[in-house]
């Protein structure tokens, strides 16, 4: 029995009834919107398969699509917000982090105008997250200074 089985079994009770299914969803990483299936075994995501039924992607994916679900259980995934204190990142709560960010942004916008702020979106965030960021920038703060790492 190799180590993937040992790791997996630690999260699952042996002799438990086995379940495996594919949940179709849309890839979050770009505007193509390829269809992909998230493989779920005993309630845990184990990977991704391309969706053969999808009219856009026809059972094909790019490297980001193939790895789209990797972040979910990745050991290096951030599980709490981090605030930089004295040059080092310190774990904090959502309330603390959100209060800090909104206070600082509001301060800058009031003192120097909305165009003193810039918002940088990322290809490593999902489409939906990037949409929200530009909404925050344009509708909430009131500046067009929003861009994306792909344009650098």
């Amino acid at each position: 029995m190799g180590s993937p089985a040992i790791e997996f079994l630690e999260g699952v009770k042996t002799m438990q009834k086995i379940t495996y299914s594919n949940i179709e969803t849309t890839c979050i990483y770009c505007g193509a919107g390829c269809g992909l299936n998230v493989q779920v075994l005993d309630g845990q995501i184990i990977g991704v398969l391309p969706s053969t039924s999808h009219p856009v992607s026809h059972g094909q994916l790019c490297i980001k699509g193939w790895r789209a679900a990797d972040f979910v259980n990745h050991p290096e995934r951030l599980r709490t917000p981090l605030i930089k204190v004295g040059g080092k990142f310190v774990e904090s709560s959502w309330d603390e982090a959100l209060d800090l960010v909104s206070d600082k942004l509001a301060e800058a916008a009031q003192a120097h105008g909305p165009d003193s702020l810039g918002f940088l979106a990322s290809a490593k965030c999902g489409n939906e997250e990037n949409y929200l960021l530009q909404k925050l920038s344009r509708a909430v703060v009131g500046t067009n200074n929003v861009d994306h790492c792909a344009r650098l």
Partner: protein
Amino acid sequence: MLVAQVREIVAKKLETLDGVVALKEEQHRVAPYLFTAGDDLSTLVLEPRYPLALVVHEILKRRPDVRIGVVTRGCQERALVELANWKQLSLDQVEIIGFPCSQEQAEACRCEMPYPTEIVAGERAQGVVDQVVAEFRASKTREERLAFWQRQLGKCIKCYGCRSICPLCFCEKCAMEQETWVTRGKLPLPFPTFHLIKAIHTAGAGKCVGCHACEDACPADIPLSILYSLLRQDLKETFGYEAGAQHSGNPPVLLLKEQMAK
């Protein structure tokens, strides 16, 4: 109807197996699924061709305590046998519920054995001799071949789809990802080492069963199976080895035919 007969057999098998891997259709979407006792089998379908051996391996890798069936065509059965030869799963944990491909499918895949060793329903189609390599060679001069592959392999975006979908690609440290061999961050690749490694490590090592999952998964429509057909033929002629034809329990060491017999 073939699929109705298969559903009946699966219902029976679910009395003793922990589950059966097959394709499920829901709202016009088809995806692999593990049917278990009590599931509605009217959603079980047989099309399109799919590398279900990959799904079986992913499951058994993590649940070595179960015994599951798989509704499969010939190529996927051979993939499972070859996986067992490379010691990646035990055939004791798998029950094949075989069905044959249609004649059209056999021609499309250029498949010599478009059915598993045993089928639960349907009729075997006629095997097809794979002529694609001979035809390719005959239709092009060396310079034309070079131009053809420069163009085809130049379309590659290194999505690793061919590797990820292949039922026989199971290495944790994949040579295609090593900077020792494959230049990083350059497209098109300056030299097709990426593709040569994939070809040599699967078809050239005795793993490729010719299921065409790689070609199906390639977003750039690269005709990979021409390369793999060549190597599979070579392996058969020079070394007398065919992936998945025999459950030897050991991966093939490719010594020349005379030496393999020892």
